[in-house]
């Protein structure tokens, strides 16, 4: 089990064993799921109520499908922990957060100081992803 | 012979393995024999070089000549800007590539 190195939630860490997306619907007592890059995150939409941990796997950080998976689940209202697991690099941490990730379990621990600067780097953002709750630059330019 | 080339990490310059270090001059290349892969791993690991690889070459009267045109262009420079190459004063330098 890979350790969670960064977590941006106040609730207790969930450590239920995650099952695969294709077996999740049949395991009526499962509360944690693991999404591989090729999985369709929308298969989970009927079960959001009983989910408390979604692990999104990044076998290679250059495979960006997990960004869409996370955002889709957040857009559908998932509020539990969204954990990025695998080959995580410092320079993408900020963008992962913007797509709805709030826990990070890198395969190899990242340099704490460099990671912290990466999380904090972008004071403003051009897009509204909605799921990170941050206002886009265009929203600041045109306050309602 | 087998020669080893790569780029200097900081400057990007094309460099050639001399047996003890790296040179900008292809003519100082050493024959790395079967040790190419090990040298690549060691030298890249030590941050001396980036994108290093082994190519075939041969000794000629004019010096060491890589077997493939791509590395001959690496060794000489762009054939269309001879003023920027190590043979800036030789108007026929591009012929060496072909």
């Amino acid at each position, binding site marked *: 089990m890979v350790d969670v190195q960064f977590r941006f939630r106040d609730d207790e860490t969930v450590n239920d064993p995650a099952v695969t997306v294709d077996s999740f619907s049949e395991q009526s007592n499962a509360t944690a799921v693991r999404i591989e*890059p090729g999985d*369709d995150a929308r298969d989970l939409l009927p079960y959001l109520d009983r989910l408390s941990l979604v692990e999104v796997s990044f076998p290679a950080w*250059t*495979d*960006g*499908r997990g*960004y*869409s998976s996370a*955002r889709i689940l957040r*857009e559908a209202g998932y509020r539990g922990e969204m954990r990025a697991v695998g080959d995580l*690099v410092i*320079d*993408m941490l*900020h*963008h*992962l957060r*913007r*797509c709805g990730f709030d826990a990070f379990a890198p395969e190899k621990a990242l340099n704490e100081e*460099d990671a912290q*600067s990466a999380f904090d*780097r*972008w*004071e*403003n*953002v*051009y*897009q*509204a*992803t*909605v799921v990170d709750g941050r206002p*886009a*630059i*265009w*929203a*600041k*330019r*045109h306050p309602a | 012979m087998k020669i080893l080339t790569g*780029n200097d*990490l*900081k*400057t*990007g*310059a*094309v460099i050639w393995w001399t047996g003890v270090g790296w040179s900008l001059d292809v003519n100082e290349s050493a024959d790395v024999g079967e040790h190419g892969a090990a040298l690549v791993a060691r030298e*890249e690991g030590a*941050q001396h070089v*980036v*994108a290093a690889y082994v190519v075939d070459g041969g000794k000629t009267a004019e010096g060491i000549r890589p*077997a*493939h*045109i*791509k590395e001959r*262009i*690496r060794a000489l*420079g*762009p*054939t*269309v*800007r001879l003023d*920027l190459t190590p043979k800036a004063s030789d108007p026929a330098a591009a012929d060496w590539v072909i």
Partner: protein
Amino acid sequence: MYKYDEYDQQMVDTRVAEFRDQVRRRLAGDLTEDQFKPLRLQNGLYLQLHAYMLRVAVPYGTLNSAQMTLLGDIADKYDRGYGHFTTRQNIQYNWIKLEDTPDILAELAKVEMHAIQTSGNCIRNISSDQYAGAAADEIVDPRPYAELLRQWSSFHPEFLVLPRKFKIAVIASETDRAAMRLHDIGIKMVKNDAGEIGARFYAGGGMGRTPMIAPLIREFVPLDQLITFSEACLRVYNRYGRRDNKYKARIKILVHELGRDEYVRQVEEEFAHLLTQPIEPPLAELERIKAHFVDPGFDANASDDLDLTDPDFRLWVERNTHAHKQAGYVIATVSLKPVGGIPGDATADQIRLMAKLAKDYSFDELRVTHAQNIVFPHVRKADLYTVWQALDEAGLSTANLDTVGDIIACPGLDYCSLANARSIPVAQKISERFGSAQRQAEIGELKLKISGCINACGHHHAGHIGILGVDKKGLENYQLLFGGSEGADTSLAKIIGPGFTEDGVVDAIEKATEVYLANKQGEERFLDTYRRIGMDPFKEAIYG
């Protein structure tokens, strides 16, 4: 043109700091080359055949004279005194040091420039019509929409690690000067029956190994849904584009394999969902951007007279200028294709001279074209001779726009680590063979495009005549293709037969022009004659 506000400036400044930090970690050994490479590429920094190469973005090809001047200064200070203008309306430097790069980016940021996403598997610099805002035939200026998309695509958190690179073009004229349908997404601004402006979307075009013309995927996207629809197109691609084979990872393969209709169905479904998410900037943001692109203060009384007594000037005016929407003005193109020269290269002095001329005579504005030339978009006819004289003195007055001498060529094996054959020497030999102005005039419009490998950076698929360099058992070999076009009549060139040596391909092209001239009817261009009589007469003359 667009001017940064505090937010835009903060974004590029932050990027410079981020890249400086990445370089520091690379040099300290905290990042391996495998980890660093995708990061440096997203900042336009390649490792090429001889050195690092830095590609600087020129968003939708528009820049002012202060920016152009700095591009010249960077060539002197950090490179070897020249730069290369590219087929994506950018500029690249061939001899950059990694350790200098953060400082270069910091200098660029001071004039509102950057190298963000000029490479890597992300949304690249957005290209547009080089005559935008000046052409007589445009419905609207396409650049405000391109700028809106630029901001949306910069650091878009969901789309930074796509299956492959992603190129968008935006045009707004009937005449397509940006090869719009050969892009991953091509957008044409149109007016609907109600007179409203909207965006027509094409998706899945591209050159490269498997050239494809993008099919239409939506007739009309309202302006207040432009970003949302783009996001839907990208999300479907990010989720389902192939990642098992980099040569099949572009969106064109996805659209082709799914079929246009199924791709459209998935996009529309995603679009319907995303419309429920408040991700679309308000129209007020588009209006804010548009205000930057109002017409400069044209002289309403500018004279339409032009003294053409100097025959060299007359030739240049006929060949290199284009009708302007404002009476008394023209659009003038500076050819970066002198006879025997390197297509797209300009020295630092030439770059600064063009900057100064733009400042004095073109309302401080220049454009880079995808054909690797420079445009002064708004020149008063009364100033044109002065401009031409200054260009002529600097070796920049070649009158060959869109003729056989105006060759698009990738850097080829002289610079590029992916190339299989050299492109530039072929371009030089062809332009020398057809060097006489009279001969070029006789042959007329002939778009010749050369790529040094199948990645097709030299757009050979879209050439009236295309040349593809390959490696044949260690020797350079050149294949010839005929019949491509990038315009409104987009078509893909077809290979005509066995390849040639460097000299052989020049001879073959000469024979092809002879066939054209012998068969030409009326005002036909080479392409028209080829389309009418087919490939056989050409093959017979070349291989017979």
